[in-house]
């Protein structure tokens, strides 16, 4: 399953860091962060609960880039 979320991030490298981090979260099969359109699309692993996974993603992203936002 694939879902797209609106994000807020200020710098391009931070967007790359968020992408890296998101890919490592359990339950995430793949992720792309598009800095230009400020969107993040997440491919969830089979059987994963998107809501719970996204909470973990947000927490992990806040760690690498404290100023980022993900609209859940």
């Amino acid at each position, binding site marked *: 399953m694939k879902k797209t979320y609106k994000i807020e991030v*200020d*710098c*391009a*490298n931070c967007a*790359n860091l968020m992408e*890296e981090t998101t890919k490592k979260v359990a339950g995430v099969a793949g992720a*792309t962060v*598009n*800095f*230009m*359109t400020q*969107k993040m*699309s997440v491919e969830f692993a089979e059987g994963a609960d998107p809501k719970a996974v996204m909470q973990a993603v947000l927490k992990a992203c806040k*760690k*690498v880039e*404290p*100023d980022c936002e993900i609209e859940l």
Partner: protein
Amino acid sequence: MNRKQKKMFIRICIAIVMLVLVNIVKKINPFGLDGVAYLVVYGILYAAIYVEIGYDILRKAFKGIINRRPFDECFLMAFATIGAYAIAIYERTGDYNEAIAVLLFYQIGEFFQSYAVGKSRKNISELMDIRPDYANVEVDGQLEQVDPDEVEIGTIITVQPGEKVPIDGIVTEGSSSLNTSALTGESVPREVREGDEIISGCINMTGVLRIQTTKEFGESTVSKILELVENASSRKSKSEEFISKFARVYTPAVVYSALALAILPPVFRMLILGQPAMWSNWIYRALTFLVISCPCALVISIPLSFFAGIGGASHEGILIKGSNYLETLSQAKTVVFDKTGTLTQGVFEVTGVHDNTMEEEKLIEYAALVECFSSHPISKSLQKAYGKEIDRNRVSDIEEISGHGVCGKVDGHQVAAGNIKLMRKLNIQCNDCDSTGTIIHIAVDGTYAGHVVISDVVKPNSKQAIAQLKNSGVEKTVMLTGDAKRVAEKVASELGVDEVHSELLPADKVSQVERLLSEKGSEKDKLVFVGDGINDAPVLTRADIGIAMGAMGSDAAIEAADVVLMDDDPLKIAKAIRISRKCIGIVYQNIAIALVIKFGCLILGAFGIANMWAAIFADVGVMIIAVLNAIRALMVKNL
């Protein structure tokens, strides 16, 4: 400017004013401070400016420490500036300007980046401003504006002059001209009447139209296009991936070399050369390294260039489905065309009447009437050339001779229309014709009356398109067609195509493309296939890049191709290649500028030639240059 940017702008202004004031006061030194008092008072004043401009960086740096991220940008900046501050105190120079300037310029750079990126994002979205906000639906005799998403298939919607067509459909009432420039880049308006199909995203210019919708909003052309363009920059190119990998290595590498620079040379000087260590000098050089270590200039300029290139192209009616395709397109060396519908109009037309013994109109009238019971495309084009309503009562005794033609009675005259074999069979003297296309010989009452030539018409721009492709560096052009050899070769030589393969079945086209792919010189030379999207989906997917043209409203083509041309002008192919070349050129320039300046400053910094001012230029200056350069990719109108 948004709220965040405004706040930053004010902070930057305050910091500049404070910095100037404090510097003036320090120069005049009105209270005659000296010694320790001088250092402490001005140290505190400067610290106030430092905190004003950099408190958010300090906060983020602190968070970076807590989250154990030693290569966090803010942490590095904070470390470098506090270090420079400490050295100024330690050496009692009283020169704190440098540390503050680094932070100030860093903030100006960030501000500029956020402003420029926001601005270009807005510009690009304006170029693609085709999203309709509402649809007019009649409820109890009154027009009501509703969300296009809520309109069901088959609803009648009304589009007033000046409004956008929100959903695909069929015109049931009214006629008007449509401005399709937002979709196709074509400025000539398109006329629509009752019964015509209409595509969402066009702007209705003159008359009121009532439209019966045939699709949901989400399935309509406008939604498809927006989705496609917005997702395009998510498909990352090789250069983008290279840079994000590079950034991951770059920062740690520079930070470790800074560490080495701070420790090794002084130790070396002390232990081996027996000279004074000059710790503060080497630490200062290491701190300049930290300022240069931020990879942002590199990282921002590349997606921005691609985004601008894709946005500019879509404004010209060229939809590129991803940054990776833009990159591949720029390496196009071979272009393979489908003939019918791509280089030619794909409609058969009467292109000549020869050897006629009666008036042209009369001859075509006879031919059209005698062929009127056939559903063959030839008979349709004859009827089209005749142009009037066919009165079938004038025709009788129709006899179709398969492989030859048709005989019958028209207005009492015995008419035969068909190929040369039919004429020979009827013992009628006639000349073969050397025009390409299908020849219909006509005999009336047993005497030869002339022949009609029917052929596919070459598009007016095709020849120029091939010439332009050659000029933009395409080495080989190939035409594939299912048509007869004679027709194909005539068209090919007329257009100047290098290679032509005729009488191919759809499967043969795939194998031809595979052969061309294997014949290519190197991996870097890419093969482009251009088709009209109808029944050439397998070839479109097989080629390195598939371009579908004339795709307005054709879902299958949008699905199968990597690049979609909204109208069917072949000149757009060369244009698409030129746009991609320009965009990639800008990407490479940006990478080169950033790397040369950054590494140049690192080397000069290591030898103590470049100070922190140079370092801040290597960081912020390079980013500003790269962003401005990236925005050039948007300007593709006159390319």
